């Protein structure tokens, strides 16, 4: 049934519909609404689950490691500093092959304290073994959470469902909230492939020597690779039941495009608008939305971008020393491709600064008028400051 929900609410509805057993979360702006909605559901019995009100994010995820190891469906949510604090346990969850699902609200990392949209927090965790799925709008958030559970439980890896702070978490949009019966058809109860059982004296996550470690890690790496195919299948099933589909990437007006903008998250919505406008003016421009970031869908990206001249990747993040992370990953995916397009990296919108239509048009112009892409990402919309500390 269609409702007008903010992104956080869409998450909560999905968690409810997924019949999650154990929730453990620590509040941090702008994730707080998620945990508040869930608290209400648990309190009024709408959702029959345990809600652990832990004392930090690190403990939130650690407690879910414990819970998921016992074979129950689990959920947490965090953002920014909280996600960073969880870092060690992010690695642990994936290495322990636990199908935990997290709603991650992309928020800038301090200093300075900044509670607004920025992608560095989730991207900085890209090596932890979590599957990462970026969302553009509220419906996608709800649908992705449901698909995340099925995927996580199929490949035994944790999944992060990512949305921009405020632009998505606190923005109200119409969202179709499916009925429980249909969701139950799509997402059956969790059947764990392993669990802590008092009658089975095994030890999970013991010391592993060089003699055995690589094979165990290889097994996880392979599961990550297989998740592309598994997700495609899950999207098919989802589409059959709910008549919606997303794909690991979504090309928009890319046929015969000479320049393709690459975006993720809510910037995609603005970019669609700009691309339509530019097309109306005769520019041969397209848009590629990236949803699946881990595993990076290399083959799909090569097919989607291989035929174009130039690619302009818009990163709402910056990894000091290498620039925009999506740009880096796209370059790596395209490397060695015959007729490889020139890739331009742009950094914009850090810390919640608006990515306007004007800014995107500037990016397009700059790309069009440039022959050789700079090696480093280009920072868009930087202002002059006169109070930087001068060295003697």
């Amino acid at each position, binding site marked *: 049934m269609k409702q007008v929900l903010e992104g956080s609410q869409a998450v909560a509805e999905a968690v409810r519909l997924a019949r999650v057993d154990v929730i453990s979360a620590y509040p941090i702006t702008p994730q707080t609404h998620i945990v508040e909605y869930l608290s209400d559901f648990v309190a009024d019995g709408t959702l029959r689950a345990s809600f652990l009100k832990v004392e930090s994010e690190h403990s939130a995820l650690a407690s879910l490691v414990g819970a998921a190891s016992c074979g129950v469906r689990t959920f947490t949510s965090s953002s920014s500093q909280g996600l960073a604090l969880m870092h060690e*346990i992010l690695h642990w969850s994936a290495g322990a092959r636990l199908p935990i699902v997290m709603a991650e609200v992309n928020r800038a990392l301090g200093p300075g304290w900044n509670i607004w949209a920025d992608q560095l927090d989730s991207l900085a965790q890209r090596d932890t073994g979590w599957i990462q799925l970026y969302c553009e709008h509220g419906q996608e958030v709800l649908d992705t959470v449901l698909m995340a559970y099925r995927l996580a439980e199929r490949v035994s890896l944790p999944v992060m469902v990512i949305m921009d702070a405020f632009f998505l978490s606190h923005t109200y949009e119409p969202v179709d909230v499916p009925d429980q019966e249909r969701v139950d058809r799509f997402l059956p109860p969790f059947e764990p492939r392993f669990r802590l059982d008092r009658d089975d004296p095994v*030890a999970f996550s013991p010391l592993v*020597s060089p003699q055995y470690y690589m094979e165990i890690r290889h097994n996880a790496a392979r599961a990550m690779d297989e998740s592309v195919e598994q997700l495609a299948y899950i999207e098919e099933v989802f589409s059959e039941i709910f008549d919606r589909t997303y794909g690991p990437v979504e090309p928009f007006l890319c046929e015969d495009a000479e320049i393709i903008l690459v975006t993720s998250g809510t910037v995609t919505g603005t970019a669609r608008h700009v691309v339509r406008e530019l097309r109306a003016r005769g520019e041969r421009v397209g848009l590629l939305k990236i949803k699946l970031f881990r595993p990076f869908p290399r083959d799909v990206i090569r097919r989607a971008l291989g035929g174009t001249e130039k690619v302009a990747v818009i990163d709402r993040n910056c990894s000091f020393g290498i620039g925009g992370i999506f740009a880096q990953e796209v370059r790596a995916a395209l490397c060695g491709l015959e007729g490889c397009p020139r890739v331009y990296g742009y950094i914009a919108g850090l810390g919640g600064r608006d990515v306007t239509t004007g800014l995107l048009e500037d990016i397009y112009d700059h790309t069009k008028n440039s022959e050789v892409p700079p090696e480093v990402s280009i920072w868009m919309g930087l202002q002059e400051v006169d109070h930087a500390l001068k060295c003697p």
Partner: protein
Amino acid sequence: MPLNVPEADYMHSGHMACPGCGAAIAMRFFLKGLGKETVIVLPACCWSIIAGAYPQMSLKVPIIHTAFETGGAVASGVRAALDIRGDTDTTVVTWAGDGGTFDIGFQSLSGAVERNENFIYVCYDNEAYMNTGVQRSSSTPYGAWTTTTPGRSWKRMRKKNIVEALVAHRIPYAATASIAFPEDMVRKVEKAKGIKGSRFLHVYTTCPTGWRIPSEISVKIARMAVQTNIFPLYEVEGGTHYTINYRPKEFPVREYFRLQGRFSHLSDDDLAEIQAMVTEDWELLLGKAGAVRP
């Protein structure tokens, strides 16, 4: 007359504990008291190794190894999951060393017991980060050598009183125990098993390797710690009701210190100062128990 403890054992031989390891003895006694319906949460500590390297396992009850500081948190999750699966019989235990309890693990422990999570937390205390090579922890006693308090920099901070810190949370049950007093320890484990909510056991476990003592006096040293009131045996219920379980003849601390290489640098004056500290702490404890010095 044989010491009266349950017969069954839930541990295998062939584990990697050092000869004379007090922590191995403690686990043995603990499981004797607790029995088979147990799952153990095991943050990083010596027992991470003693439990066995992949693919081996030295216990007859399941273990989930976890990151160093997560003992309280993981146990909370395990408990919630078991409960929601309908299993309320299995006892969830966190088995942590002093590092994972007093220091890095203190936050998650405090968080878990503040929520009165239904589990037993056992801190087996060998008074330093032994697994990584004898570095000091806040459980290392005043006067001790460790690799991070070497030479003249021997530890001049007093041992953190972890039981008091836990008692401040008003948990249903907290107690000390010692490997030299098996019957007392088993009694406390059996008692803890029957209580709901957060239960904390602080177990004194000798480390021959880290304390620089011959392995065969491992139990004797543990006994001396109790006999000198350095490590009193007592229980606290509900955060308020103290019971002292053993009133020894109060031997002077001197011989206890002189038998251990980690204290060999202490002078007679240092020992006298330490004796005064031990007496002071003991009298504080007596006061809490409403007991009178004989």
